[in-house]
């Protein structure tokens, strides 16, 4: 695989690991989610531009829109947790209560 691909693939993997393994703050997980979205965006844009696949050039932009939506959703969850406990430590989410 070419160097560029390995570079972006590595960025994606690092963000994925960061999403799934973190210490206590929920915020770090959300930030890694953003990183994943970013690497995907760069990968898609580069592929489209290199292969001159013009018709698919709206895909990265739509991807960005949906990333924004899910970021908002994640942030609202964060706000709800923070409203109840003051900090967003993951070990607080142990009450099965709605």
């Amino acid at each position, binding site marked *: 695989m070419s160097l560029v691909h390995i570079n972006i693939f590595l960025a994606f993997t690092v963000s994925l690991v960061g999403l799934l393994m973190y210490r206590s703050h929920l915020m770090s997980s959300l930030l890694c989610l953003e990183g994943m979205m970013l690497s995907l965006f760069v990968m898609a844009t580069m592929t489209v531009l290199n292969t001159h696949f013009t018709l698919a050039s709206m895909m990265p932009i739509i991807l960005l829109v949906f990333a924004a939506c899910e970021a908002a959703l994640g942030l609202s969850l964060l706000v709800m947790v923070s409203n109840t406990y003051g900090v967003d430590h*993951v070990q607080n989410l142990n009450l099965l209560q709605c």
Partner: protein
Amino acid sequence: MFSSLMLVSLLVLTLPIMLSIFNTYKNSTFPHHVKNTISYAFITSLIPTMMFIHSGQETIISNWHWMTMQTLKLSLSFKLDYFSMIFVPVALFVTWSIMEFSLWYMHSDPYITRFFKYLLTFLITMMILVTANNLFQLFIGWEGVGIMSFLLIGWWYGRTDANTAALQAILYNRIGDIGFIMAMAWFLFNTNTWDLQQIFMLDPNLTNLPLLGLLLAATGKSAQFGLHPWLPSAMEGPTPVSALLHSSTMVVAGVFLLIRFHPLMENNKTIQSLTLCLGAITTLFTAICALTQNDIKKIIAFSTSSQLGLMIVTIGINQPYLAFLHICTHAFFKAMLFMCSGSIIHSLNDEQDIRKMGGLFNAMPFTTTSLIIGSLALTGIPFLTGFYSKDLIIETANTSYTNAWALLMTLIATSLTAVYSTRIIFFALLGQPRFLPLTSINENNPFLINSIKRLLIGSIFAGFFISNNIYPTTVPEMTMPTYMKLTALAVTILGFTLALELSLMTHNLKLEHSTSMFKFSNLLGYYPTIMHRLPPLANLSMSQKSASLLLDSIWLENILPKSISQFQMKTSILISTQKGQIKLYFLSFLITLTLSMLLFNLHE
């Protein structure tokens, strides 16, 4: 000569009202002026009436052209025919006596001049109603008597019950006005006029709708069953008001309207049957309600309602002239009954409950005499006033091809008339006194004596006098079996004896708890209790729910947003078995992913 005298008589009535802008209003002799004005108007109106009786010539006076709306011409026109020519002197005579009576009754009232002004305005609007030749003028009179009734019932406006009763009268009359306006609209559409002559000449074919409207108007104004509770409640007004409005003049306006339209009604069998059944229900129901009331004015009010039902029954058997005769004779003795009750009430220091009266037979001889004669005239004892109209009605109903059930109801109501009349006499006059010892019983005021005396003479002789001097209209039934001729008298005597026996037998018994029949009769058949609470509550709550709940809180809030959140929460609680160890779950996800990538060579 004829028409100008009649117009003079009607115009004379309006003089005190117009003069009230001058200083005679502040004078304490204004009531006397009003009473004298009415007596002059009565005497003046006797002359055209006698001319009419002699020649039988009817007149229509069309004075002033008011406006023309494309093809409809509205003008001020008076119809002086059989009905109005005989009713005007009778009404003026009764009103004259009532005015004199109220000089005594309302003597200590600070606003007595305003009272007389209101009574006079009422009389003027009643005259407008009676002499109207087109429906528009009739409607002016119709609304006018309604408004004056409201003002007079609520005369003592500090009393909540009086205000409620006045409002009740207005509301029930308004429901009847819907029928009136519907009839007016129909006539405008189909006969292009509001003039009675043109309507009768054109003789439209399908008259169901306007006659139903007129029947509804009569139901509202004359307190027939369904729109009847306002009449007993209207007894909150002073006794002269009850005597004038709610016995002789205003409540007969509905019957008068139906009598005016008799050329249309005689061709429509359906409406006649409806009228007959409505009148029969009314007369029986109100007679039953009158049996157990304890307020003397309410008993007489129910008696009025029952007699109005009898008049409607008469129209239902296609005898408008007999109904009109009953209107005229009924005015005399009913006004006198109210005036006697007013005399009793004032003498016993404003006591209206018959359970607290008694023994007035010796204490108030003149009032006793007139009360007994009035009750006898009411029940139709032969050759008093009521006999000439009531007995004829019962005879004609017996011998006509009509609904047997309605006839039976009417006969039962006739005997009940005797029963409650006996009840009044027994409780108010006979026995030992049940009122407080410190009394102010006197009847030595000439106003009181003269007014009742005049109506007394009328109650005895007016029936004979009127029926011998009018020209024959519909031929009464001449031949019938003896038992049929004596039916009315028989049921009346039966009612008298039954009531007297029952009263004497149970007079000293222990008071027992009321039966359900007693409660039915005492609470007016539960009709006001149900109809004044349930429909308004249902209407208001339905409108509140549909206005605020339906759109705002259900559709905008609850259907999508809140229902979705509720559903999600419930299902997630239901199927969730997790404990919240997020880091462990993420870690397991990562390990699974790595292992699968390594094992299956997915990165190649």
